[in-house]
């Protein structure tokens, strides 16, 4: 897609660590999207151009603006910090892609949403879309009071029958096994949140004999930093350094090597690349163990040891 330039028209502080941004197109029309979509936003920080994926929280029927909610990450690689400390109303930013890797299953008769913290974002657009279609859903939202409980109040007012909150305040714990065991075959489950939540849901679903297609995942986390290492590209005969805070994908892009990508978070499989290395820290949600012998995902995978060199077929 061509880059779309958007202007920040509104910023709201939702919790002490979560900010909501409204973005309107400066010239062209807004590209329409389906609920669950994310945009890739370019952030020109002082050190480098960061490309981060943010789920849209706006109503797919609202053609005037995109809205996103960004949590300030404690170990920010620069993106969320930039959004919180530098971006102001009136600023113009570039959106380089909009895609949906977390769409509602059209054949499901009931949608069960499980959100952990800022993982609530894609469900906001799903719920808005389901209001239009009168679709059946329930939301299970685990959050921390006053920190990661974005939209808690408005959700519990608007959807009091459908929303279950799990926090210190409600003194309730999300029991995933009970929740999944209670579902019949018309339900599909969607989970967005921290790694351990996603893992727990997928493991329990598997142990209950569920099809993989019944569970839909969105890992919203930006790639984790790690040790610095090198990659050697066997086809283009290049050796590129990957610093601690960059992913392989970002290091390649900085050197002008383009790899097709969509999610930049290890879930969609677009950037899957052949490798010839023994020790890889894969970190993705896409490849199975056999596939990992041959492929890695440059958007999240790294070397395990400092100074190691990974050989890629690029």
């Amino acid at each position, binding site marked *: 897609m061509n880059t779309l330039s958007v202007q920040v028209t509104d910023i709201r502080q939702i919790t002490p660590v979560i900010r909501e941004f409204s973005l309107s197109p400066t010239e062209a029309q807004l590209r329409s999207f389906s609920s669950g979509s994310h945009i890739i936003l370019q952030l020109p920080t002082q050190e480098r151009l960061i490309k981060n994926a943010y789920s849209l929280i706006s109503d797919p029927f609202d053609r005037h603006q995109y809205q996103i909610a960004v949590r300030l990450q404690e170990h920010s690689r620069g993106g969320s910090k930039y959004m919180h400390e530098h971006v102001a109303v009136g600023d113009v930013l570039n959106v380089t892609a909009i895609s949906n890797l977390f769409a509602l299953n059209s*054949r*499901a*008769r009931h949608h069960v949403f499980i959100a952990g913290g800022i993982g609530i974002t894609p469900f906001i657009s799903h719920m808005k879309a389901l209001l239009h279609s009168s679709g059946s859903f329930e939301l299970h939202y685990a959050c921390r009071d006053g920190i990661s409980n974005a939209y808690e109040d408005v959700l519990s007012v608007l959807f009091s029958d459908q929303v279950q909150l799990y926090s210190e305040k409600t003194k309730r714990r999300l029991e995933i096994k009970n929740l*999944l*065991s*209670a*579902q*019949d*075959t*018309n*339900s599909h489950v969607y989970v967005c949140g921290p790694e351990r939540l996603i893992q727990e849901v997928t493991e329990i*679903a598997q142990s*209950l*004999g*569920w*099809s*993989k*297609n*019944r569970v839909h995942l969105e890992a919203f986390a930006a790639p984790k930093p790690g040790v610095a290492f090198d990659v050697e590209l066997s086809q283009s005969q290049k050796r590129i350094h990957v610093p601690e805070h960059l992913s392989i994908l970002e290091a390649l892009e900085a050197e002008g090597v383009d790899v097709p990508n969509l999610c930049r978070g290890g879930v969609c499989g677009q950037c899957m690349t052949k490798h010839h290395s023994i020790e890889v820290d894969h970190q993705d949600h896409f490849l199975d163990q056999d596939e990992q012998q041959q492929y890695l995902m440059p958007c999240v995978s790294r070397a395990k040891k400092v100074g190691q060199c990974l050989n890629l077929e690029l």
Partner: protein
Amino acid sequence: MVTLLMQEAMSSTPSYLAVADVLQDKSHYVIFAEKDDSCDLLALQTHLSIAKTKLFLFFNPDHSIADYLEQSEKFIQKQAAGTHIIICGTESFIWQVHAMLATHGYLEHEVSLVLDQTIGHPLKRVYCVHCSHIQDTSEQDYYECKQCSLHLFIRTHFSERLGAYMGVFEHVQHQNRGVAV
């Protein structure tokens, strides 16, 4: 006369499990079986242990398949997601049950298909792409549509929704092969 080459299986060509390949890792199973005296059904119950299985048997000369599906449907609707279903019978039986399960949200890997080779002569369910008539045939490659009388070639192209192989006018195939480019 041009002789047709052996058709290759397509991605839509259904594949079935042998009884021994049905995974034994689930806590319980629901079996939809076409006939009670079939060797495959007995083998399947032994393979999974009878205690872990609930059986819905079709064979009953007084009932139609529609009645059978309607009754099983009542049970199916109350099941928790993850209940593993095994359909054991002829191809025509398998796909009629499969279609009923699909409407209730059963997904791939939650349903195992065992083609029962021990039941009589295997019939193929075929769909005439010209007049939409569905019929069962014992033929393997060609058949005549009972509704529009066309001579049809049975493709490996299979529709899970219809539970049938596509039958297309045989001369279309011949013409394609006869034209020099």
